[in-house]
């Protein structure tokens, strides 16, 4: 009887994990002792950081997509279906179109969902770049935008890629300057807490950049309603902001499946932050955005977590004591304009150092965007 390892999700975490497991357990898979299955509801794998460049006409949506089947090792079975239930007592998943699927080791890597409906008027009045449709619609709006008030509002945290809103306004500033219309555009950035970013050193760096580039900042601004007719953004703190073009980072939520399975509140899987094992069930792991760990919801986190879980599952399958742990390693490039960037690297309990932005780091980021497909294949 073979051991069945099931991965839910075909994003960065799920794909890297599948490939790392195929690499580590190749012999066991070939001999029939182990089966690895990825369950994903999409034929395509999406590299979401590409969306940041779409509004500025620097990337096309097609640049963000590759068929999952082209990225995942052929020794991994792929089931294209939607998981509708997780039964951790009987160790099986319910699927929308197929029969129930039993597992011995389960990893949840289904990411997050956008819930713009939580803020009345946001869908009608705001744009975003956290998905293909949003990014292409924003591209068209940006192309026509030559004067007025551009407001970027971070509506709730956590959200995917925490640096992206800062990047967007710095890129917008530079892009509008290069188009010769920056003097006719006022830019305002809002953030829910008392500083410009959740990470103090990034907040300090961004605040200086914003000041230098004449970008307004409003902190303690929790948008709770958008009036698309009057073009006004209202906050829980009683503030109002008039806008001409609103970019609202929509609220994010975890997965209902997680809550229904009793694996964590709010759809986030409650895990040990080092082993990534679910606290409420045996042989269940969570990686990527759906895991409730005290670091950023970033692709690099999913990537490093996948390596840890691959090691731990491989050890268990072989009857060894798993020793691999995830120490919170996070790496984020941060664009500071259209042709310069910086990056941060940190782990649990570390405050990152933000270095001065430079053109070589910007090119490194563009280079990584191309080589990301090697990461997904488990090679980089």
């Amino acid at each position, binding site marked *: 009887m073979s051991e069945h390892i099931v991965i839910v999700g075909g994003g960065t975490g799920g794909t890297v994990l599948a490939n790392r497991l195929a690499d580590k357990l190749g012999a066991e898979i070939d001999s029939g002792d182990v089966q690895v299955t990825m369950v994903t509801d999409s034929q395509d794998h999406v590299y979401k950081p590409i969306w940041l460049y779409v509004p500025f006409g620097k990337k096309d949506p097609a640049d963000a997509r590759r068929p999952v089947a082209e990225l995942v090792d052929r020794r991994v079975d792929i089931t294209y279906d939607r998981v509708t239930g997780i039964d951790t007592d009987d160790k099986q998943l319910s699927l929308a179109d197929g029969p129930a699927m039993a597992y011995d080791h389960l990893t949840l890597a289904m990411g997050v969902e956008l819930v713009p409906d939580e803020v009345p008027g946001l869908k009608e009045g705001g744009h975003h770049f956290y998905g293909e449709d949003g990014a292409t619609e924003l591209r068209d709006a940006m192309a026509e935008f030559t004067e007025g008030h551009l407001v970027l509002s971070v509506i*709730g945290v*956590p959200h995917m890629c925490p640096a992206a809103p800062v990047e967007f306004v710095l890129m917008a500033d530079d892009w509008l300057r290069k188009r010769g219309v920056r003097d006719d555009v006022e830019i305002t950035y809002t953030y829910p807490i008392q500083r410009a970013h*959740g990470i103090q050193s990034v907040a300090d760096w961004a605040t200086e950049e914003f000041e230098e580039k004449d970008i307004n900042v409003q902190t303690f601004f929790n948008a709770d309603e958008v009036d698309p007719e009057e073009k006004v953004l209202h906050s829980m*703190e*009683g503030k109002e902001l008039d806008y001409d073009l609103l970019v609202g980072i929509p609220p994010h939520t975890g997965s209902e499946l997680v809550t229904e399975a009793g694996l964590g509140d709010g759809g986030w899987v409650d895990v040990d932050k080092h082993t990534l094992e679910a606290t409420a069930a045996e042989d269940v792991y969570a990686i990527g955005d759906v895991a409730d760990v*005290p670091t950023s919801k970033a692709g690099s986190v999913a990537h490093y977590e996948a390596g840890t879980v691959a090691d731990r599952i491989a050890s268990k399958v072989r009857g060894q004591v798993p020793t691999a742990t995830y120490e919170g390693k996070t790496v984020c490039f941060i664009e500071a304009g259209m042709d310069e960037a910086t990056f941060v690297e940190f782990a649990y309990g570390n405050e990152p150092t933000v270095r001065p932005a430079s053109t070589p780091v910007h090119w490194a980021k563009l280079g990584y965007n191309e080589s990301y497909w090697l990461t997904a294949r488990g090679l980089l």
Partner: protein
Amino acid sequence: MSETMEPDITVDSRGATCPGPLMDLIGKVKQSDPGTVIELQTSDDSSKSDVPDWLDEAGHNLLEVVDQGDYWSVYVETA
């Protein structure tokens, strides 16, 4: 006061780092009616300053902060 205080809602943010506890509280306040008493449980030291600062900004009431040993209970009443 806290010995007799019965919150309407308890938000357990123990283990979360800044700004997690504050954002958990903001999320609950958003969903609550005026007059709701919320207990925020936090083990993050910075919550003791950033939560009162936000309450001031948003016009809600800080009732009490109780040291529970390995975490703090921050009691809030929504306005």
